[in-house]
């Protein structure tokens, strides 16, 4: 079972194909991806509340699609309301019931994770028992090191370092070694054949997850990179789906 732990739905501000839900389901079938966990581009780029609502409608009735609740650390109070709306006890109807994690994008919000807001959000997510996917890359604003204080303070919350640090993926690996609740998600423009192997050597295959960054990237890009990662069958099974199933509570259909 292949689970894409880092995907999106919605418009991108590049002249690329703007993939709809039917497009996404078609490419998942083509590539053998069984489940994709999506965040709304509208939510991470512009308005979290509006985007989450759009995502809830988009994934309703599609068992292959699950959602991240996107939050914006500049709007902490509203973000906590969004958590309750989509992850709280009242969120069992329709599309809302299909949210299984939280997405934070420090770069697009221009808000570092090692702030009181990042700490408060992580503490709040602990009550819902779901993972947080944090976008990480090389700049100071989005460094994977920024996630470490909140991870240490909330060891019961799984935090996934999205892109595992991107253009400084080796920093992502170093950070993940520092706290057992940190996970590495592999997709980015940087497809160094060594990086997944080194991630596995550092933290174990149980803490590495496959993601594609679709619909920003064609999923073929990340899938092709996994071919060159030199994984054993057991490692591959964990990374391509087993870990995500465990973390997000995904059952085989």
């Amino acid at each position, binding site marked *: 079972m292949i689970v894409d732990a880092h995907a999106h739905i919605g418009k991108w501000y590049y002249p690329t194909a703007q993939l709809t839900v039917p497009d996404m389901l078609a490419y998942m079938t083509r590539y053998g991806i069984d489940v994709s966990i999506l965040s709304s581009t509208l939510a991470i780029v512009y308005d979290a509340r509006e985007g989450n609502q759009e995502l809830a409608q988009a994934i309703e009735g599609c068992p292959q699609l699950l959602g991240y609740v996107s939050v914006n650390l500049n709007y902490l109070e509203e973000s906590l309301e969004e958590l309750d709306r989509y992850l709280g006890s009242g969120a069992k109807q329709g599309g809302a019931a299909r949210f299984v994690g939280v997405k934070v994008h420090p770069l697009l919000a221009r808000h570092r994770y090692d702030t009181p807001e990042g700490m408060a959000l992580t503490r709040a997510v602990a009550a819902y028992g779901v993972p947080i996917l944090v976008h990480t890359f090389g700049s100071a604003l989005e460094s994977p090191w920024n996630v470490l204080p909140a991870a240490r303070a909330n060891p019961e919350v799984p935090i996934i370092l999205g892109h595992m640090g991107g253009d400084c993926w080796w920093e992502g690996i170093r950070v993940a070694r520092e706290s057992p609740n940190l996970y590495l998600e592999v997709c980015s423009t940087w497809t160094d054949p060594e990086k997944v192997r080194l991630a596995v050597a550092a933290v174990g295959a149980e803490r590495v997850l496959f993601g594609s960054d679709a619909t920003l990237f064609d999923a*073929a*890009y990340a899938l092709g990179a996994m071919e060159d990662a030199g994984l054993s069958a057991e490692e591959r099974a964990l990374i391509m789906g087993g870990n995500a199933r465990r973390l997000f509570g995904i059952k085989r259909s």
Partner: protein
Amino acid sequence: MAQIDLLGDVGEIIDLDAVAGSWPQRRADISVGRLLSMMDRHGVGRACTVSARGILYDDAEGNAETLAWCRDNPRLIPVGTIDLRKFAGYRAEIARLNAAGVRLWRLFPEHQGWTFELATFRRVLSALEDAGAVLFVSGQPSAVARAVAGARLPVILGVHFYQMADLLATLEEGAGLCISTRLLHGPGVLGRLVQAMGHERIVFGSGAPLASLGSALGCIAAARLPAEQRAAILGGNLRRLLGVGDDR
């Protein structure tokens, strides 16, 4: 993986964008042996290979290393480079490699910290024109198109699809650039580019072994182009540009 199988019979695959040597900026095995094993694994026939030593440390030493590798491994096509930070001796170096049969040249502003409006670039460009070279550089499409406008040599541009809007605008303005596929991994980007400029000036590149050949080939397969276009992008166009035959 299914996406690679989708490539079908495409003739000889030639990779425009390979590097070998040592890489200090992160842990990576970019030895010639590793490059060849990746090529074998993915069915790549030949790879245009530049020395990392030439990019980062000493261009002449790197070029000598490249020539030696390519003598020992006929599947590697030698790529020359000039370090614009040094500049001194560039004409002699271009002449030396030209005499050794080197046709493709790469310059690396992204690693050496220079920009296309510098006089050093204009002088080296002129020398490459005189040598009948093909130039491969990465950069912002507008800046590269402006810098090479009217040049008497083919220029291949490496560009991330995040700069696709600028690339399309540059092509609308009539730029005759060729384009490397290396970072065109956005959905539908390759198909859009074929619509905008035809397929004859699009060339497959991977960045191996620093980057995954599987990723690069997967994106070509995903574009679902007609077989003859796919074959041209994966090898035929570069053979024509470099004036080399099909080695299969």
